[in-house]
C-alpha cells in the first residue's frame, strides 16, 4: 500500500494565523476578501462593505477582534503600573468597568490608544491595536509585584454591534443583558453551561449600541453558533475592516495609520502627535501627580497644539479623501489636511476628520477635493464646517435598557 505523501509547507512560519472563528467566517466570506491584521487572516469585507455597514447601523453584525492585542496585567502593583503608564486615572476605574485610555512616550507623544478592563481589584485586561508587550515591559520596570501576560492568542473576542444586538443576546439566553450599562462588564453561562465562561462588555468601536463578547478559544465556535442561531431573524452578518472604518469615522474615533502615527514607530521628528493635537484632552488627567509624559504634556498643553483634529461637514457629496485644506477659496493659504473622509449614509452628510492648524480653526476652511467620474478626473473646492459633536451618536447607544425589537 502506498503511504500518504508527507507534505511539508516551506512557508509554514510565514502563513497567516487563523482566528478561532475562522471556520465560520471563511464560509461566509463570499468574496474571499482577505487581508491581515497582526498576523491573522482578516476580512476586509465578507460580502459587500456597504451592506455590512448597513447591518451595523440597522440590525446587527459581528466583527472579529481576535487579532486585537490583549494583555492581562495582574498583581498588587498592576493598578499603580497602569496608572503611571496611561494618561487617565486608572485608580478611579471600578471593578467590572472599562475605560478608554491612551499612553505616551516620555516626550508626550501618543504611542497608542486602547481600553482597560478592571476584571478584579488587581487584575486588568488591556486591549490595543498594535503589539505593545515591549512597552508594557518597559513600563513595568520597577514594579515587582505584577505579571504581564500576552493573551492575544488565548482569548477569543467578537465585537457584536448594532441596534438589535441586545435583543439577540437576550434571545441567546443572556439573562439581564439589557441592564448592562455602557462600559460595564458581566459574565454569563453559554448554552446552558453551569459556569459563566462568556464575558460581555458593553463596548465597541462603532459609536452605536453594541457589545464585545470574550471567550476561551475552544468555546469560540459554540459562541458563534449560538449567536448566529439567535440572530438569524435579526439580520446578523459578519463585517470586516472596510465597514469598521466607516462606522468608526461616523463616531469620530481615531485610527492608527490614519489620524495618528504611533510614536514608537515614527521616524521623522514630531511626525507623531500629542493627545491634544488629536483632541483627546479629556483623556489627560493632570490631577494625577505623575504619569508618563506628564511634564512634556503639560508644556504641550500650555503651548497649545500646532494642529488640532477636527470633525468636518463638507459641502457636496464628494468624499474629501487625502484633501489639503485652505483658509481661502483660492487655495493660497494651506492650513491642514484630511485624515479620513466618507459620504455618511446614516447622517446623509459628507464627513471627514482633519488636522487643521490651530490658528486657523476660527476662519474659513476649504477643501480641495479630487475625484474621478468614469475615468475622468476632476477637482472642486468645497466649504467645510467644523462639527463639535460626533457625526453619529444615537440615544440608543447609551440607553439602558436598550429598546426591544
Amino acid at each position, binding site marked *: 500500500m502506498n503511504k500518504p505523501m508527507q507534505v511539508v509547507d516551506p512557508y509554514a512560519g510565514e502563513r497567516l494565523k487563523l482566528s478561532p472563528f475562522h471556520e465560520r467566517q471563511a464560509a461566509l466570506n463570499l468574496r474571499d476578501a482577505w487581508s491581515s491584521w497582526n498576523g491573522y487572516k482578516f476580512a476586509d469585507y465578507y460580502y459587500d462593505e456597504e451592506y455590512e455597514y448597513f447591518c451595523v447601523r440597522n440590525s446587527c453584525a459581528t466583527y472579529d477582534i481576535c487579532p486585537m492585542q490583549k494583555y492581562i496585567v495582574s498583581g498588587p502593583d498592576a493598578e499603580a*503600573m497602569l496608572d503611571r503608564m496611561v494618561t487617565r486615572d486608572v485608580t478611579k476605574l471600578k471593578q467590572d468597568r472599562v475605560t478608554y485610555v491612551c499612553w505616551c*512616550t*516620555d516626550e508626550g507623544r501618543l504611542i497608542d490608544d486602547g481600553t482597560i478592563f478592571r476584571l478584579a481589584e488587581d487584575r486588568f485586561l488591556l486591549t490595543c491595536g498594535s503589539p505593545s508587550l515591549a512597552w508594557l515591559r518597559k513600563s513595568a*520596570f520597577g514594579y515587582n509585584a505584577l505579571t504581564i501576560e500576552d493573551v492575544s492568542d488565548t482569548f477569543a473576542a467578537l465585537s457584536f454591534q448594532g441596534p438589535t444586538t441586545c435583543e439577540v443576546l437576550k434571545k441567546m439566553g443572556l439573562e439581564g443583558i439589557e441592564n448592562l450599562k455602557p462600559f460595564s462588564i458581566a459574565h454569563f453561562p453559554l448554552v446552558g453551561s453551569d459556569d459563566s465562561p462568556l464575558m460581555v462588555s458593553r463596548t465597541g468601536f462603532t459609536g452605536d449600541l453594541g457589545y464585545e463578547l470574550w471567550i476561551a478559544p475552544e468555546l469560540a465556535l459554540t459562541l458563534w453558533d449560538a449567536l448566529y442561531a439567535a440572530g438569524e431573524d435579526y439580520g446578523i452578518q459578519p463585517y470586516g475592516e472596510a465597514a469598521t472604518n466607516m462606522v468608526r469615522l461616523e463616531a469620530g474615533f481615531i485610527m492608527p495609520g490614519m489620524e495618528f502615527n504611533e510614536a514608537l514607530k515614527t521616524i521623522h521628528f514630531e511626525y507623531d502627535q500629542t493627545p491634544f493635537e488629536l483632541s483627546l484632552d479629556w483623556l489627560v488627567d*493632570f*490631577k494625577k501627580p505623575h504619569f508618563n509624559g506628564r*511634564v512634556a504634556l503639560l508644556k504641550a498643553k500650555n503651548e497649545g497644539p500646532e494642529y488640532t483634529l477636527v470633525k468636518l461637514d463638507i459641502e457636496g457629496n464628494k468624499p474629501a479623501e487625502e484633501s489639503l485644506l485652505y483658509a481661502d477659496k483660492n487655495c493660497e493659504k494651506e492650513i491642514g489636511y484630511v485624515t479620513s473622509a466618507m459620504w455618511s449614509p446614516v447622517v446623509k452628510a459628507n464627513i471627514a476628520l482633519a488636522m487643521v492648524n490651530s490658528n486657523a480653526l476660527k476662519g474659513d476652511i476649504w477643501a480641495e477635493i479630487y475625484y474621478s467620474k468614469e475615468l475622468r478626473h476632476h477637482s472642486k473646492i468645497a466649504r467645510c464646517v467644523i462639527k463639535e459633536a460626533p457625526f453619529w451618536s444615537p440615544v440608543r447607544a447609551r440607553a439602558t435598557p436598550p429598546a426591544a425589537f
Partner: protein
Amino acid sequence: MQRFDNIIIGGGHNGLICATYLANAGQTVLLVEGGELGGLASTREFHPGFKVSVAHSLSHFSEDVSKQLSLAQHGFKPSDVSLTTVGLSLDGKHVVVTDNGVEGVGESDQDSYTEYLKMLNRFAKVLKPFWLKTMPRIGDNSLPNMMTFGQLGLKLRLLGKKDMGEFMRVATLPARDLMDENFDNELLKAVLSWDGLIGSKMAPRSPNATVLNMLYRMSGGKDGAHTLPQGGISNLIDALHKSALASGVEIKTGVAVSKIVIEKDSHGQRASGIVLQDGTVIKSSRVVSSVDPKQTFLELVGARNLEIGFTNRINRLRSDGYVAKLHLALDGLPSFTGLDTCDGRMIIAPTMDSIEFAFDDAKYGDFSQSPVMEIILPSIHDSAMAPSGQHVLSAHVMYVPHALKGGWTEQAKDTLYQRLIDLLSKYAPGIEQQIIHGELLTPDDLEKSYRLNGGHWHHTELSMDQMLMMRPTYEAAQYSTPIPGLFLCGAGSHPGGGLMGGPGHNAAKEILRSVK
C-alpha cells in the same frame, strides 16, 4: 524640625565639594553619609595597625577646586613629587616612567615618548576647560550652550590644521593603535596604555574612550602623573571635611538614606527631603545625590516616580566594576627583583596582549588566569599607615568581573587571592612569607561596603555613550534631573570618576544658578 536648603546624599569627595560650594554661597547644607566620609577614598584599618584606602593615588584632582575651597588652609598638602611608574619585568629589566622621561627602553622609544607626551599635552589642554563646565543640553540652543560648543570648536581650531585632525583621529582610537604607532617596547606600551584603561571595562583593543580617559587624567596639575599627598589620601579627605565644616556644612555619618521624598500633588512632583534608614524624615528644598545614578534613580527615587524611557536608560547604564582591590599587611618591605626601591607605582602587565587576555576572561564572567595589576606601598609615603618597620601593599587588580560566573563564593575569592599572591611572588620573591594579613575586595565587595552599584569606581562606565552631555544619560546630564529639586553631583555625572572633583564643583554651580 529644621529644614535645609540642600541635603547632599553621600560624603565622597564630590559630595563634600558640592556641599562646601553651596554652603560658601550662603545655603544651608546637610550632608548624610551611610559609611565613612571619603567613600572609596576613605581610609580604614583593615588589620590592627594597618590602614588603607581603596583609591590609592591622585592623578587629576582639580587645582581650581583646591584653590576655591582653600584646601591648603585646611591642611591639604599635595605632593610636588610624582610617583615613578614602573613596568615590572620578571627579569628585573623594568621600564621606568618619570617626569623626566622613560628609562629601560631604546633610544627611539625615549625620543618618541617626548613627542608623544607633548602631543597628548596639547590635546589635554584643549579639553581641560570643559571638565569644569556644564555640558550643553541636547536640543537647547541657548546662548551659554552655544558658547560652550563654540569654545570647544575654537580650541580645536587653534590647535592648527594638522593637530586638529590628529586630535579628532586619536581621541577615540583604541589604546593599542596609539601605542603601536608610537613605540616598540612591549612593556612600555602596556604601561602607558594602563591609565586609559584602569577602572573601566575596556582593554587596549577596545575602541571607545581610552585615549579620552588618558586626556581626562591629564587635566590635573601634573599632566596626569600620580602623586600622594603628605599623609596619604586621607589628607585630602580630611582637608575637604574641614573645609566643609568651616563653611557651615552639617554632616551626619553612619546614617544611610533609604529614600528620597518625592512630594506629589496636582502640580506634579518634587524632591523635598530624605528618609533615613530609621524612618526619620528630613526636609529640604533640594536633594543632591552624589550616589551613583542607578541607586539614586532606581532605589532612592523609584522607577514609578520617573518616566518610562528615562528609567530604562538608567537601568541600561553599564556600571559593572572590573577592578578588585588587594590589601596586604606585610612585616617588612617587599623586595622586587631588580628594583632598589618600591616607592613608585608598579604595574604588572608585561604586554598589551596580557592586558587584553585578562580582559577577555572577564568579558565572559571569569577572572583572569594571569591578572594585571597596579601596586603602591602607601606606608612608604605615610608612616601612619602601618606599624613601624611594617608595610601596606595596595593593588588595583584588573579585570575582575562584578558578576562572576557562579557568583562570588569564598572559594572563588580564595582562588583569586592565591593566584594574585603567586603572581606577586614571581616579581617579589618571598613576599608570601611577609604577609601578616591579606584581604581581597571584589567589585561585589566594593558594591556592598561602599554602597556603590556594580562596585564601579566611576559609578558608571566612562565611555563615549556615557560621557559629556550623555553622562549619565541625556535629561540628567546637566546635574538637574527630570524631578524638580533633585540634582546629581557624583562620579556618574560629567566629567566623571576618579579623585577629580569636577562633578561636585559643576553641580554646585548649576544648583546655585537654578536658585538665583
